[in-house]
Structures are given as structure tokens and as C-alpha cells.
């Protein structure tokens, strides 16, 4: 190759005209010949590199198992491995002392540290020929901080404007023996530390995986979506009123590309809570993703339905706005030691349509709770219905997707001129329940909410978001010492996650 290059140069050079004959046009031709030769060499190098690397390095796909696991209830995919065994770091400071068996025996085998929107450890099986199965063990520490500023724009609203730590989490997630994934996550934003995700997932086949521990219930797209990737700063009212959260239990789930499913058995008493009756709750969800196999613009379109049924004890819905204002209270009296004892069922329908920078998401859910012992009214059923529509648009053109990071085309950097990515959004939500519940005049059985969002993604890990929302109460609500007909709130959030 080198000789060929020299010959090409020499040939061009020897063929050059004498000074007297030099003409600008000839020089241009010679140089162009050299440039062509260089271009050919570049192609050759590219070909050699491609041969060497084989399959593309899929670590850069941003679809690591940890990232998916932290996304909540979505099925986990098999670990995607680097195409080549990473090179040794040599024998200098911290380098792995190759060939020293005593060292390996005492301190372990060489692992690598990688960056994939977060730092991770990986141990690669050097004998595994399939690049997709090469990572035998991995471990990743992660975290999230959400600092909020919340302001009630009505001067006479009794709520206090405040800064708050909405979430402060640390977690470990990883994979061992290729097919076992885990997540352990602690929340420190509240007074006491609480466990969030704490589960093990066995994924020998993506069509039927088993998960056990404390994790998100498979009801509603918005609930399954990680807090990090929500369209708005708070989830729709239904998630709080209907107690859609994590539960202790086991789940069978799978992904057949064009569809995915989840079937779970749980306590039905909330996150990391022991059961207060012997009956368990059953939850199921089926989602169709008809365009996913084609991997095109519509790949993330999803239509889903979900259902849960179980018996509960002392479950009385709590009705609160995004800012935590209670807009309806159900006074109860214990009968035979229970304020409620009966079945609870929840039925949901979802439609999510992300198309490039646009995203539309709508959900409907209804909950029926049997035999709530209302003070002065006796036992009766409570039915709550909620629906919402979100419309989002990435002004800077990036694709939004579902339950994943928004990745700006250029990260915000005032020194280099990058501005990050900007997104605007609209939400309308409606919730109603039994009219009789507001008959006492202390609360409303119906509320409508309009919200506007501006999301500024500085880079894949950080965003600054502003939400302005208004809640219209069908009947006046007592808040503190005030009677209010609506609520206007501005929420600002600075979020960092890795």
C-alpha cells in the first residue's frame, strides 16, 4: 500500500512539466490526482476498520439494560455488549498487571469501566463469541435529584410557596450471569429513607421474564414511565387517587416486539407495604406496538389496555391536586375494625403516539372500590373516572419517544454556543367521582385541569422545566381557612439524573 502511494506520488511528480512549461492548470491536475489517491486510502482504512469491528458497538444505542430497568415496568432487554473485548490499560498507574496469576487470584479478574450516560462496571467473558452475550456481569450506580419551586399565584390561596426536594434517589442496578437483572433504589427526599425499586428479573427469554420484589404495577403508561422522563412535572390525578404505584409481588412479562404484556400478583397495599388481608391483587396489561418491528418513525406508537382486581381493607381514595391541595375528603367510620373492606378494580386504556418531535398521549381509567364505610351514609361503592390528553412538541426537532431520555442535538454550553433542546406541551385532564361524595359541601366531585409545560433539556442528563396549571373545581373547596373555586400553580423543576 505504501509503495503504491509512493509510486503514485513519484509518477505525478516525474510527470510534472518543467518550470518553463508550468501552468496553473497542470498543477491543479496533479494535486487533484493526489487528493484522489488520498481519498482511496481513506476508503481502504474505513474498510479495514469495519472488518475489525464487526458488529457496531451497541453500547451507544442508549438502550442498556440498566437504563431500561430504571425506566420502570417496561420489559427488560438482554444486555447489549461491546463488540470487542476492551483493551487493557497497560501496566502504568492502575494498569492491570497482565499475566500475574497471583494478582488475579487475590484481587479478581480485569473488568472495565464504561460511560453510557452514567458510569458502569462490566465484566466481559473473553470466551463468548456472541457479542450480544459477552457481558457476564455489570453494575451501575445511579441517582436523581429533582429540586422544585412551587408557587400559588392566587394571593389568597392558603398554600405556601416553597422550595422542595421532590425526589433524591440513589440506586444500584446491574446484571449478573447475563440473564439476571436487578435494581435497588432508595429515596431520600422524604423524612425517612424509603425503598423504591427493589427487584430481581430473570430474563432467559424476552418473551417470558419473571420479576419479583417491589416495583411498579403495570397499569397506565404514565405510571409505568419513569419520573425522569415524564411530559409534565406531575402525573395525572388518577395515579394518586387510585394508588397506582409500586407494589410487592411477582410479575410475568414479555416483549414480542409487536406487543408486550405484564401479568402481576401483588399485595395491593402500596409500595413496600405488607398486606392487611389474605387476598392478593391481580393486575394485567397488554400493549400493542404494531410499528415497532419496522423500526420506523412510528416505532413507539402504543395502544394498551390494563385491568386489576383484588380485595382491599381500609382503602379510601385520597383526592389531591398536583400541588397537594385536598379537593375531596371521604369521612369514614370503622365497621368491624375496617373503614373499607371489599373489592377494588381498576380498568385503563392508553394511546401513545410519538412521531418524531411530536407526541400525543391519552389515557382513560376507572376505579371502583366496594363498601367504603362513609360516616352517616353507611357502606357504599366509590367510583372514580379520570382521563387526560397530553400534546408535546420538541421545538428544536429532536425525537421524543416513550419512557426514554430526550437527547438534544447540541447540549447547552454558553461557551460553545449550544442551546440544548426545547419542548412545549399542553395537557387537559378531567376527573369525576360519585356526586353524593360532595353532598356535604366539603369538596368537589369533579375537577378539570389545564396545564402548559416548557421543558429545556440542557443535555441528556439535565433539564429545567416550568409547568403552569389551573384546576377548576366544579364546587368550591375548603383549603385551610379559605374557600376556593380554582387553583393556579407554577412549578419549576431542576432535574439531574444519571
Amino acid at each position, binding site marked *: *500500500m*505504501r509503495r503504491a502511494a*509512493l509510486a503514485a506520488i*513519484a509518477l505525478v*511528480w516525474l510527470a*510534472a512539466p518543467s*518550470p518553463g512549461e*508550468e501552468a496553473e492548470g497542470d498543477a491543479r491536475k496533479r*494535486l487533484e490526482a493526489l*487528493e484522489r489517491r488520498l481519498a482511496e*486510502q*481513506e476508503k481502504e*482504512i474505513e474498510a*479495514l*476498520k469495519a472488518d475489525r469491528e464487526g458488529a457496531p458497538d451497541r453500547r451507544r444505542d442508549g438502550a442498556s439494560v440498566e437504563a431500561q430497568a430504571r425506566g420502570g415496568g417496561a420489559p427488560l432487554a438482554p444486555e447489549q455488549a461491546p463488540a470487542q473485548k476492551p483493551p*487493557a*490499560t*497497560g501496566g*502504568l*498507574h*492502575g*494498569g*492491570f*498487571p497482565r499475566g*500475574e496469576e497471583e*494478582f488475579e487470584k*487475590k*484481587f*479478581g479478574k*480485569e*473488568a472495565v*469501566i464504561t460511560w453510557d450516560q452514567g458510569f458502569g*462496571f462490566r*465484566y466481559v467473558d473473553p470466551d463468548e463469541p456472541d457479542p450480544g452475550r459477552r457481558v457476564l*456481569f455489570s453494575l451501575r450506580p445511579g441517582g436523581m435529584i429533582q429540586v422544585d419551586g412551587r408557587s400559588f399565584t392566587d394571593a389568597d390561596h392558603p398554600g405556601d410557596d416553597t422550595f422542595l426536594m421532590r425526589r433524591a434517589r440513589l440506586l*444500584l442496578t446491574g446484571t*449478573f*450471569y447475563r440473564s*439476571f437483572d*436487578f435494581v435497588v433504589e432508595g429515596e*431520600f427526599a422524604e423524612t*425517612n*429513607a*424509603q*425503598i423504591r425499586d*427493589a*427487584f*430481581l428479573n430473570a430474563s*432467559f427469554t424476552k418473551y417470558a421474564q419473571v420479576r*419479583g*420484589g*417491589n416495583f411498579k404495577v403495570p397499569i397506565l403508561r404514565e405510571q409505568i414511565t419513569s419520573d425522569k422522563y415524564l411530559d409534565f412535572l406531575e402525573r395525572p390525578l388518577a395515579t394518586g387517587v387510585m394508588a397506582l404505584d409500586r407494589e*410487592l*409481588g411477582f410479575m410475568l412479562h414479555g416483549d414480542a416486539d409487536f406487543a408486550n404484556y405484564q401479568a402481576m400478583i*401483588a*399485595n395491593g397495599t402500596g409500595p*413496600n407495604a*405488607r*398486606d392487611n388481608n*389474605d387476598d392478593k391483587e391481580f393486575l394485567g396489561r397488554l400493549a400493542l406496538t404494531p410499528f415497532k418491528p419496522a423500526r420506523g418513525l412510528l416505532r413507539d406508537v402504543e395502544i394498551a389496555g390494563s385491568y386489576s382486581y383484588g380485595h382491599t381493607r381500609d382503602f379510601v381514595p385520597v383526592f389531591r391536586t398536583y400541588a397537594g391541595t385536598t379537593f375531596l375528603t371521604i369521612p369514614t367510620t370503622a365497621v368491624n375494625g375496617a373503614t373499607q373492606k371489599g373489592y377494588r378494580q381498576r380498568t385503563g386504556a392508553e394511546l401513545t403516539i410519538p412521531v418524531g418531535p411530536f407526541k400525543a398521549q391519552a389515557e382513560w381509567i376507572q376505579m371502583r372500590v366496594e363498601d367504603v364505610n362513609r360516616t352517616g351514609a353507611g357502606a357504599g361503592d366509590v367510583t372514580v373516572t379520570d382521563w387526560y390528553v397530553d400534546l408535546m412538541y420538541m421545538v428544536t426537532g429532536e425525537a421524543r419517544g416513550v419512557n426514554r431520555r430526550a437527547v438534544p442535538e447540541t447540549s447547552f454550553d454558553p461557551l460553545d454556543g449550544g442551546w440544548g433542546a426545547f419542548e412545549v406541551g399542553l395537557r387537559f385532564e378531567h376527573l369525576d367521582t360519585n356526586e353524593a361524595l360532595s353532598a356535604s359541601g366539603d369538596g368537589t366531585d369533579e375537577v378539570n385541569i389545564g396545564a402548559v409545560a416548557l421543558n429545556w433539556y440542557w443535555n441528556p442528563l439535565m433539564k429545567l422545566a416550568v409547568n403552569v396549571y389551573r384546576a377548576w373545581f366544579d364546587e368550591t373547596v375548603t383549603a385551610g381557612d379559605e374557600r376556593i373555586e380554582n387553583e393556579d400553580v407554577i412549578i419549576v423543576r431542576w432535574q439531574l439524573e444519571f
Partner: protein
Amino acid sequence: MQRVMRAAVALAIALGPAGAVAQEKTPGEERLEALERRLAEQEEEIEALKAREAGQPAPDAKADRPASAAERGEKFEKTFGFDALATWQEGFWLRYVDESEPDPEKRVLHSLRLSTRVQSDFRLFAEDDHPGDSTFLIRRARLAFTGTFYHHIDFSAEVDFAANEADLKDAWVQLSYFKPAMLRAGNLRVPMSREALTSSRYINFIERPMIIGLLAIDREIGAQVHGDLGFANYQIALTNGNPVNSRDNNDDKDGWVRLALTPFKPGKGLLGDVEVAASYNYGHTNGFRQRLRTYGETVLFDVNPGATGNPFSDQTGTRQRAGAEVTLPIGPFKAQGEFLYQRVEGNQVGPDDLALDYHGWYVDLLYMLTGESMGTAKRVIPKKNFDPGEGGLGAWGLGVRFEQVQAEEALRGAFGGGRTDEVNALTAGLNWYLNPNTRVMLNYYRAWFDETIATGGETLDNEDVVLLRLQFEF
């Protein structure tokens, strides 16, 4: 090669028309030189790639990997630190290697490990009229940092989140300069009972024997000197005497001593893990709670001095605990038995001042159906991990436990009925080790109460509980 090529091109330039007519470079010359440089760089790159294809070392290995901190220069090291490395040794470790140390076994100067443990249980009361609710629960959910600084300073810091609060577990620093006499201080396991000293990751059954909970043998804040002599090991400790990360409520401290003989350990043979041990503890306590619970957390009695509704108004006095242990792991078989005794003085009930004696014992018999060695307080390594695709079934083991706890008969009178001073229990266990990090456990537990107990509006003579655990630790 590169020099030869550059010389050839330089000669050509010198002899060429540009060199003859002008010293200053024309735009054409600059363009030509740029091309020349690029051509040389590409040739080097092609050579390196071809050499690698042929399995030969690249002419310049530096081009193949990121530069180390040392190669990037002192300024980089000063700002961002030295290169460390990652290793896999039943978990991921960060290691900093001391390059000046010639002995490979001493080359790591600093180490750090992040680890976790989750035990996700299902507990089923087999009798319909039992007032306890069958439930899923998180028994343990822990995050831990462990490591070593400067070769000899070990530490462990561990937090449990299972109870929806952060509970400190291990939190100690240890000086390990001299193996026969190491010093550990912090919140540490007290040196009593093989079962209590064994990590919950490796215990034989889902729950420890009831006597251990009654005697409150757990972690305490204090300091301990301990050492391993090969054929024996010992621990001598001084602690507050209040369980798990609690300050003392009196000026006296608890003293502990444990001596374990491991006569076959130096031979490293089949009997290497055989252990015979004895331990003793003495201290003063104020308000010491003496509670006996079953594996289903049913309370059989609860001496809770000063608590509302409790007949015991106070406790101030000495507490003594003593234990004897035998552990016999022989290949896939394992037998383990212990006897534990406790005497607590100064229990005030009405006008009486009672000294309460308790004792309990248990015997565990275990067998690995798939032939793996069990050892003591260590992982079971399956011969073949569970993998349906490759036909591996993991390791399977069976076990049975019989245990008994007896308390002072005077307790029954103090509580006025509805409590028992004696319980016997039988537990049968099935252990499935999917791989060294994952275990599924199924236990069936039956307890016989010597006296009928009253709980949750029901009376019980016995209790049947099925416990299922999914455990992973990493």
C-alpha cells in the same frame, strides 16, 4: 518507513519546479505538503490496522487505547487523580495499584466495592383462622460500601431500607496490620452464636432460630479485638449492650468473649470448616426487652418494661448470656447445633423483682442433593448455574431444623394467661441456588406452643407457616 517517504517527497520538492523558482511557499506547495502529511499518517494507520488483522502487535500500542493518567501528564494527574482499575471478584471492585510494590499479592493499596442484597419474601399462614395476614414483604434491602485503604485499614458501611427507613447495619473500621490481633470498632456483630454471626445471605433457613431473637443477639456499638490463628479464632469485645446502633442508657458496658476451635482448618481438607465454639457475655441493662416471636412474627410473650399495658414496670440489673456451638460441614452434608442461655435480673412486676432465665437450642441438618460443598458462612457455588438454554439446573439442597425455647415459668403468671413459656418448632427447607448470587428458599415451619396463646382475637396451640424467599446479592 515514514522517514523514507518524507525524504523522497522532500527531494522531489527540492528538485521540482517550486524549489527552483522561489523560497516562499506558494499556495500550491502548502497544499502539496498537507497532502504529503496526510498520506504519511494514513499509511501508518493502514499498517497498524493490517498488523492487528494478522494478530501482530501494532507498531504503536498507544494508538490502540486511551492514554493513562500518567501518560497524559502530571497536570492531569494532579487535577483528576491517578488511574485506578476495575476487577471482578464475586462483585465489582475499584482498585488502586501500588506500582512500587513487587509482591503481586500486596500491590493493591486501596479498594472499594459497591454491593447490594435484596430478600423478597412471601409468607403464608396455612391455617385459615390464623389472625396473621399472608403477605409479600421485603425482608432485607441493603446497599453497602466495603473496602480497604492503605493495605490494612478495612471498613464496611451498610444500610437497610426494608422497613421504609434507613437502618444502619455494619458500620465499622478495622485495623488489620496483624492478623492474629485485629481491632474493629463501630456498629458490629457481637461475638456470640455461629448463626447470628453468619450473614443473612448464607443462613441455612429463611429465619434464624427463635432463641437468637429472644436474646437480642445482633449488632451493637463497641470495639472488638479479634484474630485468626488458623487452628482457632477468638473475639473479645466491649459494647453498649443495646442492640443495633443504639447509645447506652447506663454507664456499664457489656463484655464479650468467644473462642472457636477449627482444628482441621490448617489441613484445608474435607473437614476444614469444622468449628467448635463457646461464648459468654456479661453486662448491665436498663429496660431490656425480652420478646419471643415465631417465624410468622406471632408474639408468644413480650417483657417490655414500662410499655403501656405490659405487666413489667421496669428492668434494671445484670444480664448474662452464654452459648455453645458445633458446626460440622463435610462436603455436601452439614450439621449445626447451638445451645444458648440468658439470665436477666431486676425485672419488676408488681412488687416482685424477678430474675428470668431463658434457654434454647436447635439442630440443623442439611444436604446438597447436587453434591456441592456447603461450608460455613459462605456462598454455595453450583456446579452448573441454572440456565434453561444450556440445561443447567443450579444446585439443590434439603434441610431440616428442630428447635426449642424455654422461658421462666413465672412469666405465665406475670402475664395472667394467653402466653406460653415453651415452644418447639420443626422447619423443613428446600434451597435452590440458581447461581452463586441467587437463591430461592422454601420453608415449611410448624411451631407447637406448650400453652395456648391468645393473639388477634384468636387462640392458638400451634402455628403453620410457609415461607418463600427470592434472594439476590451482588
